[in-house]
């Protein structure tokens, strides 16, 4: 199967020159996105086929390092992520069939798009450190090119710059991690790495490097700074891929190193991962709540979901270290299911945001409003995504969070005291982030799609095209199916959990009424299907009974608003005012939020002003000092640029002596 997957990747790569050749043609976007759609669907089918294959399939190419070649392999873990990548790729291509027509500079997007898809597939397929890192870098560079597709916007260029820096930093960390894993013999093939287990101190370093390297791409706090800049800057279908899919590829990188290559975990690894996950989840959603740019809000919210995934992974590590394989399988399945779910609803939400952007030319929620009247179908699909991401039953986001809670409830059995104290705290953070996520998406949907239009652009919006709608409705349907029939999806994860922790959750599909029972029925069970049916039935019965027995009369009238309606849409609650109570409760502590009200003196006709000041604590504490130090150092070193040849030669000589000295002392 790996060979066929490579054919698929080759087909995607071959589309890039086609895109360059066609770039002046008006049909270029149809050809490229159509072809990408077909290839990604085929690749997704290959992933599905390999997920249940009894053995991993391997392919080798005579490329790269001479004694190694390039090795590619699909095992259960890779197969799962192949499905996630190509499901996202296929829906993004379908969406772009419509959305891409409005692209102003298609020649800057089309060639990189299939390459980017190919790169993400290659990362997942790679079976040696060399191909992994090359594909990883390829993925970073192609996505960077897409981020700066609209390069005339200074904001986008800045986003691209920060992204490039952080991507190089992350790759450096991964490079060091693989260097340590390969050891002095240079065993870069994953098979060889798997066979040897590094010493405890070394594996600790690898863990930290993997957390930093893969985490910076996934967007864990505090390495998330580039993510909310870069993800929204790209065209919306690329944003969906970056947020929904590329962060998952980063999670894959972390899982591949930590669960597969690094050998048996030590108990404290999980503490690092859990702490990072909990903080990431809450910080991500708090940042998201403070935004009024719709796409940036969604990007920040990706950070939160990555935190939830890491909480699942951390719990799985803790259980695995203690040999509690069944519990580890539950936690891992929760994390993986959330990976899948998030890729589905985050793509859906970015598509919705892209449609709104296309229809109005606005990303700022303060300039939108009332779109539900103008774009009813987009609004419906976006609403489904909002409910799913807020972890509300009966949709899919709830199921993966429910499984994570069930895993947390198993953790008092862990013997270590550190975990006993940490896990309830992480549970509280998870609960807090779930509640804040709901608030965040009430704001996102309510301000963008409900209320009255705040600008003429929003008032004149038009419903988006049928391809875009098809992509959104396909994902919305998937949200519902994964929410009401989660057993099928959990069973599909069994090969992955079996490969990584040696056990899988009990088989779910055969249970009565398609209930899911993670451990035992006396402990916990959930049936999304019945909840859905009950809610639908009782709602319909109520509607039928009231309309039949009481009254079904309806009259349209002016707004009541307690008797003081104001015709100006400015008097509505805006995104900022909606977030004000939450900003006051959480923001004063986290962001040092300050509200400065300026009231003009009596008689003056100047408008009153309210300014809100927010400080980003992580940028202030981490990035600003580093950037300052680098700026300071470069200014000092700058004199080196204007030396005479004599001095350069003496510098070279001094460096040579120094290196020889080091060598002499080292041996």
């Amino acid at each position: 199967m790996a060979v066929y997957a490579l054919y698929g990747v080759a087909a995607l790569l071959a589309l890039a020159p086609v895109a360059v050749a066609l770039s002046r043609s008006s049909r270029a976007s149809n050809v490229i996105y159509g072809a990408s759609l077909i290839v990604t669907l085929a690749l997704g089918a290959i992933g599905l086929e390999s997920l249940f294959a009894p053995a991993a399939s391997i392919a080798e190419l005579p490329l790269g390092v001479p004694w190694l070649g390039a090795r590619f392999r699909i095992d259960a873990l890779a197969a799962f992520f192949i499905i996630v990548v190509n499901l996202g790729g296929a829906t993004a291509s379908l969406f772009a069939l419509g959305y891409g027509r409005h692209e102003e500079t298609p020649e800057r997007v089309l060639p990189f798009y299939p390459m980017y898809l190919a790169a993400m597939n290659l990362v997942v397929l790679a079976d040696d450190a060399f191909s992994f890192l090359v594909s990883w870098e390829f993925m970073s560079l192609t996505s960077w090119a897409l981020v700066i597709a609209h390069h005339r916007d200074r904001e986008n260029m800045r986003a691209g710059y920060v992204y490039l820096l952080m991507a190089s930093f992350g790759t450096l960390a991964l490079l060091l991690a693989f260097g340590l894993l390969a050891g002095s013999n240079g065993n870069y093939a994953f098979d060889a790495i798997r066979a040897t287990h590094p010493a405890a101190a070394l594996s600790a370093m690898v863990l930290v490097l993997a957390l930093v390297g893969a985490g910076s791409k996934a967007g864990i706090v505090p390495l998330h700074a580039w993510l909310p800049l870069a993800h929204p800057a790209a065209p919306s279908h690329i944003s969906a891929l970056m947020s929904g899919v590329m962060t998952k590829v980063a999670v894959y990188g972390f899982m591949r190193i930590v669960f597969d290559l690094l050998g048996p975990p030590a108990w404290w690894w999980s503490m690092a991962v859990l702490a990072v996950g909990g903080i990431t989840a809450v910080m991500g959603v708090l940042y998201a709540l403070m935004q009024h740019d719709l796409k940036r809000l969604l990007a920040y919210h990706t950070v939160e979901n990555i935190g939830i995934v890491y909480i699942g992974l951390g719990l799985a590590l803790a259980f695995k270290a203690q040999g509690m394989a069944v519990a580890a399988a539950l936690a891992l399945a929760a994390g993986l299911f959330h990976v899948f779910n998030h890729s589905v609803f985050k793509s859906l939400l970015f598509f919705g945001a892209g449609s709104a952007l296309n229809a109005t030319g606005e990303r700022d929620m303060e300039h939108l409003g009332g779109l539900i009247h103008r774009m009813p179908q987009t609004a419906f699909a976006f609403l489904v995504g909002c409910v799913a991401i807020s972890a509300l039953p009966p949709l899919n986001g709830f199921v993966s969070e429910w499984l994570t809670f069930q895993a947390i409830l198993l953790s008092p059995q862990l013997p270590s005291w550190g975990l006993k104290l940490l896990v309830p705290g992480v549970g509280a953070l998870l609960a807090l982030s779930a509640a804040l996520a709901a608030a965040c998406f009430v704001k996102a949907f309510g301000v963008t799609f409900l209320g009255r239009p705040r600008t003429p652009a929003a008032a004149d919006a038009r419903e988006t095209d049928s391809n875009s709608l098809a992509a959104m409705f396909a994902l919305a349907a998937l949200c519902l199916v994964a929410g009401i029939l989660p057993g099928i999806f959990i069973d599909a994860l069994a090969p992955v959990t079996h490969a990584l922790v040696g056990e899988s959750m009990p088989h779910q599909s055969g249970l009565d009424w398609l209930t899911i029972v993670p451990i035992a029925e006396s402990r916990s069970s959930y049936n999304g299907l019945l909840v859905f049916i009950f809610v639908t039935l009782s709602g319909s019965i109520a509607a039928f009974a009231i309309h039949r027995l009481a009254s079904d009369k309806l009259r349209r009238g002016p707004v009541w608003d307690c008797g003081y309606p104001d015709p100006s849409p400015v008097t509505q609650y805006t995104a900022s005012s909606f977030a004000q109570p939450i900003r006051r409760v959480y923001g004063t502590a986290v962001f040092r939020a300050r509200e400065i009200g300026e009231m003009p003196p009596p008689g003056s006709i100047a408008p009153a002003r309210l300014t809100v000041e927010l400080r980003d604590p992580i940028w202030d504490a981490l990035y600003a000092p580093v950037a300052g130090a680098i700026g300071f150092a470069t200014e000092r070193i700058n004199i080196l640029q204007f030396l005479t040849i004599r001095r350069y030669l003496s510098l070279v000589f001094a460096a040579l002596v120094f290196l020889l000295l080091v060598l002499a002392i080292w041996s």
Partner: protein
Amino acid sequence: MVLTHDFFFQGGQMLLVLLLSPLLTGFVRKVKARLLRREGPPLLQPYRDLIRLMRKEVVLAQNASWLFRVIPYIVFAGTWVAAALVPTFRSGLLFSWTADLIAIIALLGSARFFLALAGLDVGTSFGGIGASREVMIASLAEPAMLMIMFTLALIAGSTQLSAMAAFMLSSQVGLRVSLGLALLALIMVAIAENARIPVDNPATHLELTMVHEAMVLEYSGRHLALIDLTSELKLLLYVSLIGCLFVPWGIAAPGTDAQAIAMGIATYIAKLAAGGVLLALFETAIAKMRVFRVPEFLGAALMLGLLAALLRFVSGSL
């Protein structure tokens, strides 16, 4: 035969909670009025209000969307299903395994999510103020509720309410510090969730002090009736929840005879009455607090819940 029996009890519970909930609200109002030496509205007034509202025509704001018209039914259905899954007079109901306590909390969360959207739909400032305050309160109340759930689930070894209630009835429980903390936190959350004094005032229409009422200001006729019925159901749900977890005596076990069921219904009504009297006493004794004092109140509930869960993680006997 057993199945029809089970269906009968499940359906019976759904009807019971629906029929009793306005009565509970009427009872609380009556007791409050009597405490203030007023005559108070008749006990059955909430039923009359509901029927009258349902017969009236709906006056819908000109720019209200389809979502605004659907939301009352969604909110009502979600809350009704949640209420039907909490054991009242008999545990082990037919569908009790459909959703555990986490799912019940999340169902109420869904209802609140949609109600907050309804507040934003017409695009008025009152709707916005209600919705934004509601989500702020929920952002603290929901995690507190989940921490309480953690504590109880770890004590009972299950997140299923029927199993929890059965465990609480057994002799293994005893007095525990964590249970006490959880009870206190649960009462605080219940007060906030039901928009009762001191967090919100269900009787006020003074614009700036209200949260829930501001959110549903634009509703009228049958829609308003459903929203009111939903609030009443929610109050009943929380009283039943506290009842089945902390005062589980009298709940009929599955497979018991008619006498036990009758006993279960009688004790359930007694529990509701006791809960109503306590709520009325509490509300009469305390003043409403400012909106930005609410986070402190609910933060305390969250910390109590966290402390209780932490105690359970650290020691099996606390």
